[in-house]
Structure formats: structure tokens, C-alpha cells
């Protein structure tokens, strides 16, 4: 990544808070938002707790004309996109016509809208499917509606690689900057909760069945027994550093490097895959493993998966593995599939900007060989952050974020 790409703003819709400030203060305080679903009884699907965005009002973010034609996952994406542009101070109308694009990562699509319409089809017949099903259910609804809503005509796309896709998409957006785009809106949001969608997820076997909010999602502990699924996500504005600087928009972090590998569904093999992805990301960033100041973990909360992640870090960091602070703020709100990694990227950007590493809520007695930040946030001078993510179908991705160099006098 020769020409630096900087993050100038972000927007968040998370179970712990809507907006960057609410999300960050909850993360720093280690607050938790794992609760029984208010949407339907999830018990038959083997899930007692979820991370739901309880106080999200679509009407606050989406005009009624668009709300009727979109699923909740698109409402989240539209809200996060608006917040990110505002946070960056970027008005798309001031950018040349094809200068800004939007890229999102997606996993489950518009499942609630989709279940409603497919129910009409099977219960009442083909003429009962409405005209919006064709644009609400598919994975590209978020990117499409954001580009229409904000008039973004630049390069746009949708990547699918489960959770790992949430990092891959940030790298793909940076690739577009190198190829001529001036700014990109990038991220992902999920609303994977309809009864049928949860029925599908049950099959991957990694959902936590625990009904105890403080014990349901405990990665890297002996009590690890799956993760709590969540909804939400984040969008970020990533810009060419020179463009941002020219317009007085502050770069909070540089997206410096990315790596991705694939090791299939055998989680044991993800150790090598994660380590290689992290090495590739560091190499692209021009950084060494010893430069890493904090790691945002994938934190699957599966014994084999956690072991593999710890082994990847030992391999990568060597003797420093026990001394580099690592964290997983998502234990406080759950894993929102393709929205999970964008939330981690926002947290990493803020950790760099504010010199604080948020803790891993609810986790206490963790594996000793990692310096997991627990209970309280820790002040750390973060110049280089590494974010890890794994997909349930076998992808391993790593993203390196760095603190921007101070502006040169020109």
C-alpha cells in the first residue's frame, strides 16, 4: 500500500451503543449487552442470549419510503454510513462524481424481510411476494442503498467471506484508493436474527447455549463454550491521506497492511493460517512483529479455535507473545458475523487515537500465556494495532493499522 490510506471517520450500530462515542465508552467501561432476544424465543434454536441493538429506531435513520423496501441489516448499514460521513466531516457532494465508492461485507443478508416474503409465497402463493423482496434480501442491498442514499457513484462492491470478509473488505477499499478513488465508505452490518436464520446458524455448532450473561461468551478460558451471536456493525470512511489532509480531515489511523489465508473448517489448521495472514499484513505495512502494540482477537470461544489463535500469536510474536496486550471487546456484545471485524477495526482505530486498549468483558480466568486485557481498560501507547478475524467457512484475515505520521511542514 504505497500511498497511505487513512481512516477519517466511523459510524457504529452495536448492541452496546449506537454511534462511536456510545460504543467506545461502553467498550472502555467493559459493559456487556448480552440478553435474551426481545424479537422471538430463541430457545428452540439452542440460543438463550444474543447481542441485540435494543434501542435502534429505523425511523431515526431511514426515510419511510426506503424503510418499507429494506431489511434491518440495511437499516443498520444506512445508519452507520450516515454517521461515518458526518464523523469524517465528508460531504460527498463536494467530491468529484466518481470519487467515492462503497464496499460492504455481508454474511446473512436480509433474513427477516426474506422470511416474511418467503412465508407469503409458501402460505399464500406466488402473487403474494412483494416487489421489494428482490432488492431487500440479497447481500448487495446495503452497498446499493448507501450509494443511492448518498449519491456515491465510485467503485462499489460486496465481499462475502464470513467474519474474515469484514477485514478483507477494508483492504479491497484501500486497493480502490490506490486505483484512483479518493475516498471509500467501507464496513459491514448484520441483522442475522429471524427464526429461520437462527435455525440455519444452529448448524455450525459454535453458538453458545448459556443463559448466563457473564458466562456465555468466554474465549481463551477453560469455560469457553461457543460464542453469542449478535447484530450490528460499522462503516468507516477511508481516504487517501493527501486528499484528507488537503481538506483538513484528520486521519485517525493508517490502514497499513492486510493478509488473508484459507485453511478450511478444521480450526486446528487456522493457527498456521492466522499466523501467515498476520505476517503478510505486517510485511505489507512495512512493520515487524515486534512493532505490534496490541492485538484485537478473533476470539471464537471454541477450544480448538482459541488454542489455534494462541498458537498463531506465539508463532508470530515469539517471546513477546505474553507481553503484548491482546483484547476482545466483542465478548461484551457478541459476534455479529461480517459486522464483527469492522467493529474491531473501529475499536483499534480509537485505541490508536486515544492510547487506550478496551478490556475483554466478562473474561477473567483466561489462558496465562496471553496478556489479555481484562476488567479495566489499559493505557497503552498504540502505534501499531493488529486485528484478526476468522470465517466459519475457513478464512483467516489480518489487518494492520498504524498511527499516522505527524503532518510534514510543507
Amino acid at each position, binding site marked *: 500500500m504505497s500511498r497511505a490510506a487513512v481512516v477519517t471517520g466511523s459510524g457504529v450500530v452495536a448492541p452496546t451503543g449506537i454511534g462511536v462515542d456510545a460504543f467506545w465508552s461502553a467498550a472502555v467501561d467493559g459493559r456487556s449487552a448480552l440478553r435474551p432476544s426481545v424479537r422471538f424465543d430463541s430457545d428452540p434454536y439452542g440460543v438463550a442470549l444474543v447481542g441485540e441493538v435494543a434501542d435502534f429506531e429505523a425511523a431515526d435513520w431511514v426515510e419511510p419510503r426506503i424503510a418499507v423496501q429494506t431489511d434491518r441489516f440495511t437499516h443498520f448499514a444506512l445508519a452507520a454510513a450516515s454517521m461515518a460521513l458526518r464523523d469524517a466531516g465528508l460531504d460527498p457532494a463536494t467530491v468529484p462524481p466518481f470519487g467515492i465508492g462503497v464496499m460492504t461485507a455481508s454474511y446473512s443478508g436480509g433474513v427477516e424481510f426474506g422470511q416474511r416474503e418467503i412465508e407469503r409465497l409458501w402460505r399464500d402463493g406466488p402473487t403474494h*411476494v412483494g416487489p421489494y423482496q428482490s432488492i431487500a434480501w440479497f447481500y448487495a*442491498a446495503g452497498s446499493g442503498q448507501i450509494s443511492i442514499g448518498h449519491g456515491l457513484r465510485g467503485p462499489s462492491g*460486496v465481499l462475502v467471506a464470513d467474519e474474515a470478509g469484514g477485514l478483507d473488505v477494508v483492504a479491497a477499499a484501500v486497493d480502490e484508493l490506490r486505483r484512483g478513488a479518493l475516498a471509500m465508505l467501507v464496513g459491514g452490518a448484520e441483522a442475522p436474527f429471524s427464526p429461520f436464520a437462527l435455525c440455519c446458524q444452529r448448524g455450525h455448532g459454535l453458538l453458545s447455549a448459556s443463559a448466563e450473561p457473564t458466562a456465555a461468551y468466554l474465549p481463551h478460558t477453560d469455560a469457553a463454550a461457543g460464542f453469542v451471536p449478535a447484530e450490528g456493525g460499522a462503516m468507516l470512511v477511508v481516504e487517501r491521506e493527501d486528499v484528507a489532509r488537503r481538506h483538513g480531515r484528520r486521519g485517525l489511523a493508517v490502514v497499513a497492511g492486510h493478509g*488473508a489465508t484459507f485453511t478450511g473448517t478444521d480450526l486446528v489448521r487456522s493457527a498456521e493460517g492466522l499466523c501467515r495472514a498476520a505476517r503478510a499484513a505486517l510485511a505489507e505495512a512495512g512493520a515487524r512483529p515486534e512493532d505490534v502494540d496490541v492485538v484485537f482477537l478473533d476470539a471464537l470461544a471454541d477450544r480448538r479455535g482459541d488454542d489455534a489463535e494462541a498458537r498463531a500469536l506465539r508463532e508470530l510474536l515469539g517471546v513477546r507473545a505474553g507481553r503484548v496486550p491482546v483484547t476482545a471487546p466483542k465478548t461484551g456484545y457478541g459476534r455479529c458475523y461480517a459486522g464483527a471485524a469492522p467493529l474491531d477495526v473501529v475499536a483499534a482505530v480509537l485505541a490508536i487515537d486515544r492510547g487506550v486498549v478496551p478490556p475483554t468483558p466478562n473474561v477473567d480466568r483466561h489462558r496465562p500465556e496471553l496478556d489479555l486485557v481484562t476488567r479495566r481498560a489499559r493505557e497503552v501507547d498504540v502505534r501499531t494495532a493488529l486485528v484478526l478475524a476468522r470465517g466459519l467457512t475457513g478464512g483467516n484475515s489480518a489487518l494492520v493499522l498504524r498511527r499516522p505520521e505527524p503532518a510534514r511542514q510543507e
Partner: protein
Amino acid sequence: MIRRAVVTGLGVVAPGGTGTPAFWDLLTAGRTATRPISLFPASGFRSRIAAECDFDPLDHGLGAADVDRMDRYAQFAAVAADEAWRQADLCAPDPWRIGVCMGSAVGGTTVLERDYAITSAEGRRWLVDPSRASRFLHRALSPSALAAEVAERVGAQGPVRGVSTGCTAGLDAVGHGARLVEDGRADVVVAGAAESPISPITVACFDAIRATSARNEEPATAARPFDRDRDGFVLGEGAAVLVLEESDHARRRGARALAEVGGFATRSNAHHMTGLTTDGVELAEAACRALESARRSAADVDYVNAHGSGTRQNDRHETAALKRAMGRHAHEVPVSSIKSMVGHSLGAIGAIELVACVLAMVHGVVPPTANLRTPDPECDLDYVPGTARERHLRTVLSLGSGFGGFQSAVVLTDPARS
């Protein structure tokens, strides 16, 4: 050093034939593979025709366990990937340097719908019954399962991802795959797309917006891109895979480069989720940027493989975009739509069309637009009606346009000239 992506393997599962020879026969003969829907009882639907694949996975190297695990679209992709991988014939490649980039618009809908009907007692239960779900249902929900299946098949351990930009996903997956090679993230990328949308929910979706042809009495001639009497697209299914390889990597091992993925660009119209502008500005912009990155001008283009879906607005929009991007040359270059023969397989079709383009370059033959009998005064380019045409092709432009407002273009060039 500038890294370039060349094509060293092709595979396809398309209506009318599995494998590139059968596919190419169909296209050059101008035959159509559209017929009444047989995959489910379609009597209550507005559009009851489609281009279906006669496909038995067990005849093409898949085992019972594969069939159990994979949705129909993934089975198509696996078979197409096998064919392309065999042709590329790589000897002990480094698995960490092999990537995968696969496109699809609607993912595992076949299994999702089958299991939905069972677990909901055909729509009577909102709280579906999980005990009746099939074992691999979670892989149908997860669209990345497609790329994962292909990766497992070829032993890829590099970057593996999917692209899901609706109907441009096939072009976008190959475009993004080529970038993985160009940017040094992989030396070999298995790129392509797959779709199996001929199921009640997808057919009902397009019924609801009257996008598909209702010419149910004339299935063989229902898909009529650029014809005055066109009334929508005919749904198709299938998969196509291209093995992309860094050009020096291919040269060093003596592999034949069939074509180079010279350029790729995508733009959004930011206008409407399904509607198109009349002037085609964004599609023209994508075409121009793709040509620019291929270091070619509009006048170099020897053949345009059109999106040509056969909806009233698309074909006008695309004609306008070509005039805008190419000026006078738009009237001189042959433009055709193979959707007239194999239907519109949503996310898959872009990759199927790129395989057709590579075959067109290899054989020096432009496939025709079938069923184009009555010209539309508003579509006044050379659409190669009815009959294939011999022509030496060095630069080929393939266009795509999809829901969400995505507009994409890929430029294929003659690798010998680069």
C-alpha cells in the same frame, strides 16, 4: 515489475451443456437452451420458463457426501472448477499462493428454500422447527461457502473470498481475482461465479417486478435481447471458472495464456435499486476506466459481450452507454448477448460470459444474439443477429449491470500483444 493476470484454464456448467466444448457448440450454433421450468411445479407463476442445466453431479466427479453438503450452485462451481483446474494443469503449486474469488447474487437459495418449506410446514410456522433442518443448512446461509468449496477442491490456501454484487458478481469476481494476482497477493487465482436461482422464491421475486419474460408459450425464443418485441429476461443457472495466473508464472512453466484480464472497473449509478438511467453514464465510465487500465482505447475493441438482458430498459441503457463510451466505433464493433441462448443466471452470468469471450478469442468467432428478428429503432448497433461470425479478436469488452445500481466492465486482451 508490473504483474499481469492471464487465463490458463476454463470451466463451465451452463444450460445446454456441461463443459466448454458443449457450451461453445451451443453458442456458435446460435441454439437456445430455454424451456418450460422443470425444476419445480411452476404453474402458479407469471414466468414459467427458464434455461436449466441438465446436471447430475454424480456424473461429474462429485461424491454423495459432496452432494449432501453443497447447494446446487456450489455443485456447478465445483464441476466448473475441476474442468478449469485440469486445463491449467499446474504442477505442485504453492497452496499459500493460490487464491479463490467466486461470485454469486443469491447464494444457497436452493437449499435455504427447500429447508424453509420443511421447517415452516410450507409457510405455516414463523417459529420454524429446527429439528427438521438438514445438516448443512448453515452452509447454505453463508455465501462464502461457495468460495470455500472451490478452495477445498483445488487446495487453495491463499486469499479466498466471494463477491456478491447481484448481477455483476460474475464480472466483479473475475475482476477482483485478477487484482489479487496484480497486487501480488496470489500467483494463481481460481475466479468465477455460480448461481442456481430457478426456485420458487427467486422466480416469484422477478414475477413481482415483471422483470422476466412471460412468453411462456414460446420458451425457445423468449429471450430476445435488443429485439423490438423483448419482454424481459429468461432466468438461467450455471457456473463458470477461470484460472488466472501471473503471466510470468505461466510463461515459466510453459502454460498457454488464453487471454489476459487487462482491465476491470465498476461504478454505481446511485440512481435506483432496479431502474437504470437513460444515458448510461456510469456504465460508460466503467467501460472507459476498464479500457484505460488495460491500456487500450475504445477503437481497439473488436467485440463487445453485452449485458443484453432483454429487459426493455436495459438494452436501451446499454446501447446508450456504448455510444457514449466508444463514439462512432460503437456502430462498427459487433455486440452480442449470449443471454439469448443460456438465459440470465444472475451472479453467474458475468463469469459464463467471460468464458465465452475467452473462447471467442481462442477460436476467432463472435457468438451471435439469438432470437433477434425485429430490430428496435432505439437499439441500433450491430448485435450479430442469429449467426456466429468469424473475426480475429484481440481486445474484448464485457459489460454487466445489476440490481443495486452496479455497473461493471472487464477488458480481455490478447496476451501475445502485451
